[in-house]
């Protein structure tokens, strides 16, 4: 705007100066003896065309460009107003394309491009172990790595814990990070309030009863009260002092996990970890992180760590294996999630870019059609002396104007969507959300993409315009685009419809798979079961106090009227993750990790679990109350486990295997295979051990009852309160629990993304079909009018007007359907039993594509039918 103001000033100055020139010349003439009026006239005549001079001066002063721009914009706005349908189609198409790109790029930016919001994040790495790039370490291994390495400026580690915080008499469950004492110092974070704990606060197990609150939790639960520092609260019934509050931007080193608080890891024993805390073979520390010292390269650090690892393997051959290390970025948990997320997002980005490209192609042909329609106008302007560059500039102004409006609409919509996405918590049980609000980078990229797409589709009709020969056009009445251009346009449309059909096919396939996977057989029966999540350590029960407490809880629940069966498990299948345990053949004596025969998924269950969960026992017996610590070790295994270790279920019964500790375990029962980690997984070995022989404070009660879930939940809560009032409980139906768990997240996301992309593809196909139909209609209005005058039926007219678009739609749909069926094979990896040869899928795709055809041709069809021969006669 400033530029335009300056342009106006210069304008005025030029006027002044030219006027002054004429005056001075007139003065001279007067001095030469002429009378005033004659002199003025003479001076003006000598000077010549004032306006022409002014234009030249402006050109020289470098501001003519602005004039032309303003004028072009005015003309473009007027031209677009005259064809609102065209403008709206173009703007909506672009808004979709640019909006999709802004959303995907914003997510990509948040996850991959933007560095983690901690000081010096460039030198921050996490340590991964072995070929499998496992991020987890055991506490003793961590200590050795921390104390013996010479490459890191301190190494910190942490794990997540679910704790019960009691600050006002009612315990609530919170997500804490159990962190090593040096955690905040290693990450170079300063407290927002109060102080942090340090390595010097650790003096052996349970020696540091301190809490540092996360800023968000402090804000939401302590209402920003600064007096909270120094307060003593109860954590799992133990007194803890709140030391301080972490800064608002700090969420730790994992991008999407926001813990409520931080507690010293050294206190894990009393907070529920018990004796597993200090066992070298238990890799329970989730992430080990540190800054490389200045001047140390990752390769040097890896060599340093590997030397320590080799030494540890030698010193502890039973416990330590695969002690080779790699470094990775911590924000997406290194190589565990990083490449998957990156791959997924880059794939999405590519798709979004394709969508935008398709949108540009559509708009390009719309523009070309428009340019052809306006060829008379262009020819006239050329004939009147407008330069071709000026006409091109005008075309581009129109394109850029549309691009900017479309881009602004798209970005606004994407900002709303991203805000929602940032506030979204995909898993109700976890403090996980994705901070994807757009930043300056996103806006800059969006603007760039907007301008670029404006130039891309604005550039399509350039050649056509440059070729325009005013004489020919004025003579013949229109220019006929070469047949090649039409063919290219058709090809583009077919490709677009095909892509759309692929997306529609895959999203219907994914949706069907998702629905089916909810009703398939996964080795337990969630219908009619209610699940109660708690952890008895939250009420202070540890060690030997755990089994009797769990027994009392199961008994109390089983006594509730209407309950048919009740049992407990340490963590239900298809929830967040699973734990595995290495097993050996009975005859193996060298119990190194390398000699393990399988790594079955491992559950600790009470005697009533199988019946409560509805898991079918195929052979042998279930557990009883006598399978306790005093009895011989027993296990129930699934078919896959039996097949791998013993060849068959029949052989397995009565057979033995060994655990790493050397304990012999007898197989007393075989159950059906199930799904444990994800719906799409292939059969995995699994084993169940009696919780009485392998105590665990984590307690999920499974209750089977035909009663109304809500009433039942109340009755259950009452019964459990009678056992232990201070135990925080979450009660849900098992079906709901599965829905909110992580197992369905992948398939859900895949289905949702495909659905959204499919919808966008569909919208674009509609505009594409619309564009082509409208174009060919406008070219053939005369012909149609003549046909009608000669008595053609409505159907004939429609066939003539829209036949081409419909043919292209059919070709594209069939191609897309075939491609979609191929693509769905890939989908089967994510979505359970995704089968494209499903009649519902085929019917759905055909219906969807037909609907698109109807939508795209509706308006042109109306227009074709309203063609009146009379009107046509008057037209030219």
């Amino acid at each position, binding site marked *: 705007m400033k530029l335009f103001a300056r342009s106006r000033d210069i304008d005025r*100055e030029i006027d002044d100066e030219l006027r002054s020139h004429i*005056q001075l010349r007139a003065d001279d003439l007067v001095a030469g003896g002429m009378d005033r009026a004659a002199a003025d006239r003479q001076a003006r005549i000598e000077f010549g065309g004032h306006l022409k001079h002014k234009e030249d001066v402006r050109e020289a002063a470098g501001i003519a460009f602005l004039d032309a721009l303003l004028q072009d914009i005015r003309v473009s706005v007027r031209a677009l107003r005259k064809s609102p349908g065209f403008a709206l189609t173009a703007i909506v198409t672009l808004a979709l394309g640019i909006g999709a790109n802004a959303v995907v790029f914003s997510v990509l930016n948040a996850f991959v491009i933007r560095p983690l919001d901690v000081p010096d994040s460039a030198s921050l790495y996490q340590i991964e172990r072995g070929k499998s790039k496992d991020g987890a370490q055991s506490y003793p291994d961590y200590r050795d790595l921390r104390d013996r390495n010479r490459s890191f400026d301190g190494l910190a580690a942490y794990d997540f814990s679910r704790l019960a915080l009691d600050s006002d008499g009612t315990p609530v469950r919170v997500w804490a990070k159990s962190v090593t004492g040096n955690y905040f110092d290693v990450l170079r974070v300063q407290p927002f309030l109060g102080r942090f704990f340090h390595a010097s606060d650790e003096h052996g197990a349970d020696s540091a009863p301190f809490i540092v609150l996360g800023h968000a939790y402090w804000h939401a639960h302590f209402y920003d009260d600064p007096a909270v520092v120094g307060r003593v609260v109860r954590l799992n019934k133990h007194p803890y002092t709140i030391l301080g509050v972490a800064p608002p931007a700090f969420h730790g080193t994992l991008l999407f996990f926001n813990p409520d608080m931080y507690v010293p890891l050294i206190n894990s024993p009393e907070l529920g970890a018990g004796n597993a805390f200090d066992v070298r073979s238990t890799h329970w520390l989730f992430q080990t992180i540190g800054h490389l010292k200045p001047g140390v390269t990752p390769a040097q650090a890896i060599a340093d760590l590997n030397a320590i690892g080799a030494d540890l393997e030698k010193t502890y051959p039973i416990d330590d294996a695969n002690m080779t290390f790699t470094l990775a970025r911590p924000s997406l948990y290194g190589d565990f999630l990083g490449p998957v997320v990156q791959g997924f997002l880059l794939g999405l980005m590519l798709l979004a870019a394709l969508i935008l490209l398709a949108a540009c192609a559509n708009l390009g042909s719309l523009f070309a059609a428009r340019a052809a329609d306006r060829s008379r106008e262009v020819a006239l302007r050329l004939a009147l002396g407008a330069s071709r560059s000026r006409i091109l500039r005008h075309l581009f102004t129109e394109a850029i104007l549309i691009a900017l409006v479309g881009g602004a609409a798209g970005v606004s919509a994407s900002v709303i969507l991203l805000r929602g996405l940032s506030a979204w918590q995909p898993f109700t049980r976890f403090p996980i959300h994705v901070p994807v609000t757009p930043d300056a980078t996103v806006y800059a990229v969006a603007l760039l993409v907007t301008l670029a797409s404006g130039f891309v589709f604005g550039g399509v009709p350039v050649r056509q315009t440059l070729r325009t020969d005013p004489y020919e056009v004025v003579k013949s009445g229109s220019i006929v685009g070469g047949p090649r251009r039409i063919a290219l346009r058709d090809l583009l449309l077919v490709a677009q419809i095909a892509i759309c059909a692929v997306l529609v096919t895959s999203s219907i396939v994914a949706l069907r798979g998702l629905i089916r996977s909810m009703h398939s057989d996964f080795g337990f029966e969630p219908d009619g079961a209610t699940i109660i999540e708690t952890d008895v350590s939250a009420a202070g029960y540890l060690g030997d106090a755990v089994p009797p407490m769990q027994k009392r809880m199961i008994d109390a629940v089983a006594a509730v009227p209407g309950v048919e069966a009740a049992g407990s498990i340490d963590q239900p299948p298809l929830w967040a993750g699973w734990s595995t345990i290495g097993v050996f053949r009975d005859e193996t004596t060298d119990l190194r990790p390398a000699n393990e025969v399988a790594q079955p998924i491992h559950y600790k269950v009470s005697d009533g679990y199988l019946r409560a969960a509805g898991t079918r026992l195929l052979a042998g017996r279930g557990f009883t109350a006598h399978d306790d610590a005093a009895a011989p070790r027993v296990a129930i295994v699934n078919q896959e486990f039996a097949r791998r270790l013993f060849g068959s279920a029949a052989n397995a019964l009565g057979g033995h295997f060994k655990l790493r500790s050397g304990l012999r375990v007898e197989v007393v029962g075989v159950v059906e295979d199930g799904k444990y980690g994800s719906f799409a997984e292939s059969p995995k070995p699994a084993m169940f051990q009696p919780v009485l022989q392998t105590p665990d404070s984590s307690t999920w009660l499974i209750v089977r009852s035909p009663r109304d879930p809500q009433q039942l939940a109340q009755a259950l809560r009452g019964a459990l309160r009678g056992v232990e009032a201070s135990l925080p409980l979450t009660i849900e139906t098992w079906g709901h629990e599965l829905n909110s768990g992580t197992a369905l997240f992948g398939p859900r996301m895949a289905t949702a993304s495909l659905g959204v992309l499919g919808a966008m593809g569909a919208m674009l196909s509609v505009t594409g079909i619309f564009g082509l139909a409208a174009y060919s209609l406008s070219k053939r209005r005369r012909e149609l009018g003549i046909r009608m005058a000669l008595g053609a039926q409505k159907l004939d007219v429609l066939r003539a007007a829209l036949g081409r678009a419909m043919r292209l739609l059919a070709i594209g749909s069939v191609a897309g359907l075939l491609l979609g069926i191929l693509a769905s094979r890939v989908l089967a990896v994510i979505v359970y039993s995704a089968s494209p040869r499903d009649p519902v899928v085929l019917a759905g795709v055909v219906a969807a594509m037909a609907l698109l055809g109807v939508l795209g041709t509706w308006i042109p069809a109306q227009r074709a039918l309203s063609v009146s021969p009379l009107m046509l006669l008057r037209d030219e």
Partner: protein
Amino acid sequence: MSPQAQLLPGTLDLLILKAVSLGPLHGYGVLLRIEQISAKALLVEQGALYPALFRLLRQGLLKANWGTSDNNRRAKFYELTAAGRKRLKEETSDWNRLAQAIASALAANPEEI
């Protein structure tokens, strides 16, 4: 009127710089000064003058201020900047070299080849 020479392209800028180098001038003054120093042999077309002046302003070779003319008219006066002075010197020597070369080329006769 004596026959006037056609201005070669590019020479107008040089003439303006030269005219202004002799003292600050307004646009009309530049016109008169060029006529005067070329002994009326060169006549600048009025329409070409102002675009050239603005071009030179934009290139930073001239600077301009509004002032009052001898006969009390408000007018915009042009002056050389340091860059303008430098350019004038360069272009003058370039022009002289070119003029000499063309003169000697045109003076050549068949015997000399």
